[in-house]
């Protein structure tokens, strides 16, 4: 089978799987809803008894998991290219935690003045936080050119930001802050339609732009010197990579908090399924893969011990952590062998 037909087949399968998961996960939960009723309620929400649950709780949550999960994986793919580091991702580099810190600070600060922050305000705060920790990581990456060092620094930045967030939340004495605690651990719980709509718009516009620069990204995979020789404007490309990966991961953090491992693991899983690293294939593939895996993880997080909810990172870490370890070991074997 030639490559493009194989890619087509894999994309087809992923889209079908995602659609099936969508129907199944909307139905799953403390109130089990049959597929027939889901379709009925989508067509005519008022008609079905459980329509309200579907429309106002399940649907936004499932759509958020799909769109934000995909965004997170794509952000990881872009960061791995930017740093030339296979274990880069928004969570492990401390970028998600930086975003979380700034969002928490802004939220608590405004709440103490009696002001609620808008969805867009959350995204902007998260974006600023992302850029701040990204800038910090980049300074360190410039000082010491070593993959493991970069990751260790990222993890440390992550811990420091999380610790400060804890302080902020603990000392902000307000009942509205209770939700902040769940969010700061990573969760799609309680996401509202407004948030979903804003996420969808931001993520799809950014994805479109990202896809548009897949050609120079592909050239960059051969290294900076060759990319430049092919006619790539390296400075502009690097800025765009930072910008797009930060927007994507900031949107996720703003609405779902920091989520681990999706950003690192999904690009690798998709590479080994598709047997290519070409951005033109990988950008849509990591998005779909991230959407599928995040949707499954979120479904487990809310149904496994219902009515108790787990943080999504508990599930992603359990499921994807070993995958990442396996990948690192395998990669070492390849580069040493």
């Amino acid at each position: 089978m030639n490559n493009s037909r194989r890619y087509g087949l894999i994309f087809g399968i992923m889209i079908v799987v995602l659609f099936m998961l969508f129907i199944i996960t909307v139905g799953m939960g403390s109130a089990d809803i049959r597929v027939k009723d889901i379709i009925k309620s989508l067509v005519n929400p008022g008609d079905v008894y459980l329509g309200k649950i579907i429309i106002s709780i399940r649907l936004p949550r499932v759509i958020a998991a799909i769109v934000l999960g995909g965004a997170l994986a794509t952000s990881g793919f872009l960061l791995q290219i930017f740093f030339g580091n296979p274990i880069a991702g928004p969570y492990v580099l401390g970028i998600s935690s930086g975003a979380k810190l700034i969002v928490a600070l802004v939220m608590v600060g405004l709440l103490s003045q009696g002001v609620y922050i808008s969805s867009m305000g959350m995204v902007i705060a998260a974006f600023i936080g992302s850029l701040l920790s990204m800038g910090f990581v980049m300074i360190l990456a410039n000082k010491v050119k070593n993959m493991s060092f970069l990751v260790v620094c990222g993890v440390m930045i992550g811990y420091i930001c999380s610790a400060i967030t804890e302080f902020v939340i603990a000392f902000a004495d307000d009942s509205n802050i209770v939700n902040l605690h769940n969010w700061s651990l990573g969760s799609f719980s309680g996401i509202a339609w407004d948030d979903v709509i804003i996420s969808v718009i931001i993520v799809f516009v950014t994805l479109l732009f990202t896809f548009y620069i897949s050609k120079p990204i592909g050239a960059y995979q051969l290294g900076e010197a060759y990319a430049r020789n092919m006619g790539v404007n390296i400075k502009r490309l690097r800025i765009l990579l930072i910008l797009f990966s930060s927007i994507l991961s900031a949107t996720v953090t703003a609405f779902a908090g920091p989520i681990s491992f999706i950003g690192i693991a999904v690009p690798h899983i998709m590479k080994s399924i598709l047997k290519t690293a070409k951005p033109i294939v990988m950008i849509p593939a990591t998005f779909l893969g991230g959407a599928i895996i995040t949707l499954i993880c979120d479904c487990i997080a809310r149904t496994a011990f219902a009515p108790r909810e787990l943080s999504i990172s508990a599930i992603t870490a359990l499921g994807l952590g070993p995958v990442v370890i396996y990948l690192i070991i395998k990669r070492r074997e390849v580069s040493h062998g």
Partner: protein
Amino acid sequence: MAKGIDLQSLTVGYKNPVIEQATFTVEQGDIVALIGPNGAGKSTVLKTIVRQIQKLEGKVFVLGNDEENLSEEDLAKTLSMVTTEPVRPELMSAYEVVATGRYPYTGRLGLLAKEDLERVEEAIKLVGAKNVADKDFMKISDGQKQRVMLARAICQEPKVLILDEPTSFLDIQFKIDILSVIKRLAREKNIAVLMSIHELEFVPAVADYVVAVDGGKVVKIGKPNEVITGPQIEEIYHMKKGTGAPLVESMWQYAKGLESILKSK
């Protein structure tokens, strides 16, 4: 003959100058060997010409155009290179690596048209890398990798080719193959080739001119028989007096043998 590359009082370096006031020309169809001791700044000159680092002073003309006025794309269509920097593409076949040379010619999404595929095939054939084309680039030998990178540079359809130590670390068979391809390119496609090289014994058989750098400047420009002489080599490479002559004599012997091999190719 047209000037492929023309350097005018070019000063290169990072913060401090490494080589100052370099002035020389590579005509189209000619091969110029850039020689000099380790750390003399050969690579720095080449990196400056390909705009990997910024020049400190002077001018670089490519096909008569001031490089400052050329866009990234225009430069990519006239000048290509092979560096010593290791390339580690992920999950790419040798064929795909060669095809990246078509970058300046493809559309927004980088899809290869029929003409692009023909150029890629042609370049692979020219360097004799057909048998590794479908293999994973990371799993072929260093010699094969070097051929593939040369094919990549060729299918960029350059008028100027910059090569940084193209034959280092290769076994003798690969060295001869690469040099014969470079020679054919210069002659048949009228490409101006500027390459740094450590193996002086190869220079007479391959290069039309030699540029020697040492101590922060260009110290000698001339035909191989004018530059590669006992006393000159002693001076350029800081060798003991009297050691250069016997060495150069054996180099010329070697070069003769190499020349006859290259001719028979």
